[in-house]
C-alpha cells in the first residue's frame, strides 16, 4: 500500500504515489533553481511542466496513478541541469558564475531549522551555520545565557531575524550544501522519514490514553496553478 497525492502539473490534475511525488518535487526544485536567473524563467519552467504533464498523460494510458518509475522515465526524457551541458556561448559568463555557486562553494545562510527545534530552532540553525554537529552545545550555551539574563533578548532577536527553513533547498542552503537534484532528493527523503518518526512518536504519546485522537498532519504540500512550489 502506498499513500497518494493529488497535484496540479502544468494546469492538469494528476494523482501520484508519495515516493514519486518526492522525486518529482525534488526534480522541479532543481529545474526552478537552475533557470531562476534566466530571462523568461516563468515561461521556461511553465513549458517544461506542461511538457511533463503531456508525457505523463501519454504514459498513463488508462492507468490512474503516476508511479516512481514513470517519474524517473519522464525525467530521463527532460534531462537534469547537468545534462543540459555547456551553456550557450554568449550566456556562458553568467552561467559560469552560477555553476561555481552550485558546485561546492554554496554560501551558507543562517536559517532557523524547522525540522529540529525546541523553541524556535535558533540553536540548531546556528549549529548548522557554524558546522557544529550537535546543537546540544549551543542549546546549553543559550540555557546558561537565559539564566544569566541577557540571553532571552538575544534569542528573541535571532528568532525574529532568521527565516525558518521552508523547503529542501533552504535546508541545503543552511548547511551550505550545493543545491542539486541528488541533494534535494536526499533531503526530501529525510524530511519524509522525519514525518514518519514524528507520527510514530505521536501515536506513542496516545498509547495508554483511552481514546486516541486522530491527528491531522499537514505535510506542507502547496500548489499554485501551473507549478509546484
Amino acid at each position: 500500500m502506498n499513500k497518494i497525492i493529488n497535484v496540479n502539473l502544468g494546469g492538469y490534475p494528476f494523482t501520484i504515489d508519495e515516493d514519486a511525488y518526492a522525486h518529482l518535487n525534488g526534480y522541479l526544485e532543481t529545474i526552478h533553481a537552475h533557470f531562476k536567473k534566466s530571462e523568461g524563467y516563468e515561461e521556461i519552467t511553465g513549458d517544461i511542466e506542461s511538457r511533463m504533464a503531456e508525457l505523463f498523460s501519454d504514459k498513463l494510458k488508462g492507468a490512474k496513478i503516476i508511479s516512481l518509475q514513470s517519474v524517473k522515465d519522464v525525467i530521463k526524457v527532460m534531462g537534469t541541469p547537468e545534462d543540459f551541458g555547456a551553456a550557450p556561448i554568449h550566456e556562458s559568463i553568467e552561467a559560469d558564475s552560477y555553476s561555481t555557486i552550485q558546485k561546492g562553494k554554496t554560501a551558507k545562510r543562517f536559517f532557523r531549522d524547522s525540522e529540529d527545534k525546541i523553541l524556535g530552532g535558533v540553536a540548531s540553525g546556528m549549529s548548522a551555520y557554524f558546522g557544529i554537529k550537535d546543537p546540544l552545545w549551543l542549546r546549553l550555551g543559550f540555557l546558561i545565557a537565559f539564566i544569566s539574563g541577557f540571553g532571552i533578548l538575544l534569542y528573541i532577536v535571532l528568532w525574529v531575524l532568521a527565516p525558518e527553513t521552508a523547503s529542501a533547498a533552504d535546508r541545503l542552503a543552511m548547511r551550505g550544501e550545493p543545491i542539486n537534484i541528488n541533494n534535494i532528493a536526499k533531503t526530501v527523503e529525510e524530511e519524509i522519514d522525519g514525518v514518519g518518526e514524528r507520527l510514530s512518536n505521536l501515536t506513542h504519546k496516545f498509547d495508554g490514553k483511552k481514546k486516541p485522537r486522530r491527528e491531522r498532519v499537514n505535510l506542507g504540500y502547496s500548489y499554485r496553478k501551473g507549478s509546484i512550489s
Partner: protein
Amino acid sequence: MKIENTKAQMRKGILELCILSIIAEQESYPSDIIGKLKESELIVVEGTLYPLLTRLKNAGLLHYNWKESHKGPPRKYYQLTKEGHQFLNELIGTWSSLVKAVELTTKNVISNE
C-alpha cells in the same frame, strides 16, 4: 580543458541555426523539433530546448500560436517572424563561410590523422 565541454560548445553554437531551419521548413511544436534534433544527435534531453526557444522568441525571431491537443495541455506552435527569416539567412551565410574556412584550415590535418 575538457573535450566534452568543447564539443558541447560547438554543438550549441549551431543549435540556433538548426532550430530556426527546422521551424522555417514548417510551423513546429517543440516535441517535433526535439525529434529532429535527437535524430541528428544535436541534443539529447528536451530540457535544453525550452530555454532556447524562449530566448529566440523574446529576441523577436519566433512567435507562437496556441493549438489544442487531443491529449494533455494545449501546445505552442512556433513560426519564424520576418526578423527570424533574416536572422536565419545571415546565419546560413556565416555557416557556409565557416565550413569553407574549416575545410581549408583542416584539410591537411584531416587527411594525415
